[in-house]
């Protein structure tokens, strides 16, 4: 056993290591647990929960692009009630930190979801999705509007004592302005980035490959953009950042932490390698040994510009 300490803190939220599995890429944990030991993962961010179940978008929902994929799932989810009844019992047993991601179509719905779910002991923090690019109501409509993001943050903050993380859209000119607003409204942290809006066409039918016309681009193709956004927030706002965007291996995770992330979320890689989380955690330990540090948190925002 190495003496490396991988613990990090996101505001008051302590994580055994900085590797989280991103919302929408891990369901509610049960499926991926057949391929990986979730108890070793720093945390699991649930698929976005809305007050009522959402059917999601019609097919085709996903398409691969060069170095990435576009998705327009449309926040398909079981809704708060079913989540509590059938998903929380499993999440209670996994012995990882459960962060509940909430999506909504109105400020009231965000507040109501948070108010109900904050009663659940299994949930240790909330990640508020103000930036889903694939639903007509809510989502990016909020995510691109600084005052709407501020209002949602303040109101959700008032509905729970648990840490509140706001998941920011990269589809804005200055992401750090949004980070500033959510900090002033009481958010504990930000996660960045959600997917980038993109599209792809079939050249023979001249139709978009995704039924929703546009989708969210994820995967290694977006990593440089995500890193730049994390760095921008880190240089301008004093708030913990969870870095997300195309992390495929431990080297990518280290890069995000150097750029300012206190923790990272793995997304698309889970679809390809459902055991990636554990491989990356092991890689982080080895990296600490190689550069001769005892605690991973020493590398957070350690950029030399």
């Amino acid at each position: 056993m190495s003496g490396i300490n991988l613990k990090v803190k996101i505001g008051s939220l302590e994580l055994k290591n900085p590797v989280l599995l991103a919302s929408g890429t891990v369901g509610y944990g049960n499926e991926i647990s057949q391929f990986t030991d979730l108890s070793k993962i720093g945390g699991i961010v649930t698929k976005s929960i809305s007050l009522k179940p959402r059917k999601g978008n019609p097919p085709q929902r996903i398409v691969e692009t060069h170095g990435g994929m576009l998705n327009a799932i449309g926040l398909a989810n079981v809704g708060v009630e079913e989540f509590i009844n059938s998903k929380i019992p499993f999440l209670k047993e996994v012995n990882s930190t459960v962060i509940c991601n909430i999506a909504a179509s109105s400020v009231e719905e965000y507040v109501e979801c948070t108010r109900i779910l904050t009663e659940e002991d299994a949930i240790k923090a909330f990640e508020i999705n103000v930036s889903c690019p694939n639903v007509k109501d809510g989502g990016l409509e909020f995510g691109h509007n600084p005052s709407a993001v501020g209002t949602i943050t303040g109101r959700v903050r008032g509905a729970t004592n648990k840490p509140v993380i706001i998941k920011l859209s990269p589809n804005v000119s200055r992401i750090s302005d949004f980070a500033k607003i959510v900090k002033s409204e009481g958010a504990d942290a930000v996660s960045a980035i959600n997917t980038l809006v993109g599209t792809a066409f079939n050249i023979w039918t001249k139709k978009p490959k995704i039924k929703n016309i546009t989708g969210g681009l994820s995967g290694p193709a977006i990593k440089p953009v995500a890193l730049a956004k994390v760095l921008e927030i880190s240089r301008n706002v004093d708030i913990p950042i969870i870095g997300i965007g195309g992390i495929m291996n431990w080297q990518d995770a280290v890069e995000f932490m150097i750029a300012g992330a206190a923790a990272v979320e793995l997304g698309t890689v889970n679809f390809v390698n459902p055991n990636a989380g554990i491989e990356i955690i092991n890689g982080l330990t080895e990296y600490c040994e190689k550069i001769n540090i005892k605690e991973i948190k020493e590398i957070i925002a350690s950029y030399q510009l």
Partner: protein
Amino acid sequence: MLTEIAEVVTVKKYGSNTNLIKVHAPGIASKAEPGQFCNIKVSETNFPLLRRPFSICEVKGEHLFFMFDIQGEGTSILGCKKKGDKLNILGPLGNGFNTGIEFDTAVIVAGGIGAAPFPFLLSRLKKKKVICLVGGRSEAQIITYGMKNIYISTDDGSNGFKGTVVQLAERIKDKFTGGKVQFFACGPNAMLKALKQFCMENNFSCQVSTESAMACGFGICQGCPMPAANEEKYYLVCKDGPVFNAKDIIL
């Protein structure tokens, strides 16, 4: 379900554009059921990024067989594999054909590369009467590998009945006798849709193996919705399918 690093044993050309790859994957082979699929990483790099889903064509001892047409980047890479190459395979995935139900005669309907899952299914139907209907655009797309008691159709008439495989079914439906008849089908969506109609009109039970773009293959990406017929919801092709009762879905 597991991930297994499988060694390629052979890749054989079958017809003009079809390949049959044999890999050594004892873990998956011991668990696989007909109609299930595997999600295969065709490269060791991030390109192509996602795995590719393939029906399990056949299981022989510790070996799995996958049949595929070369259609894009993923299948082109897979078609170039050599003996000894390694493939990272996730499987077996999804729900396969339900053969536990009562029936005496199996009617197999395969369109083009939709023939892929049937050699494995037929290996489990040795005590049943089996009729195979195999269709394709032209003779080059007719795949009869592992089939028996075969009737062929081609759109251009270059082999067998001239017309679609569902028109062929209509033409020879007086042969679908011998106790309770169960259809098993796989092929393009238009074919499955027409076959569902035919089976409903003639009161035949029909299981269809469907396909969809997908990322993970086991339910976490939610990328492969299939509209449910009787409820306001989507099934997932990967987890609830890929085999469905035709009456349960909207094709």
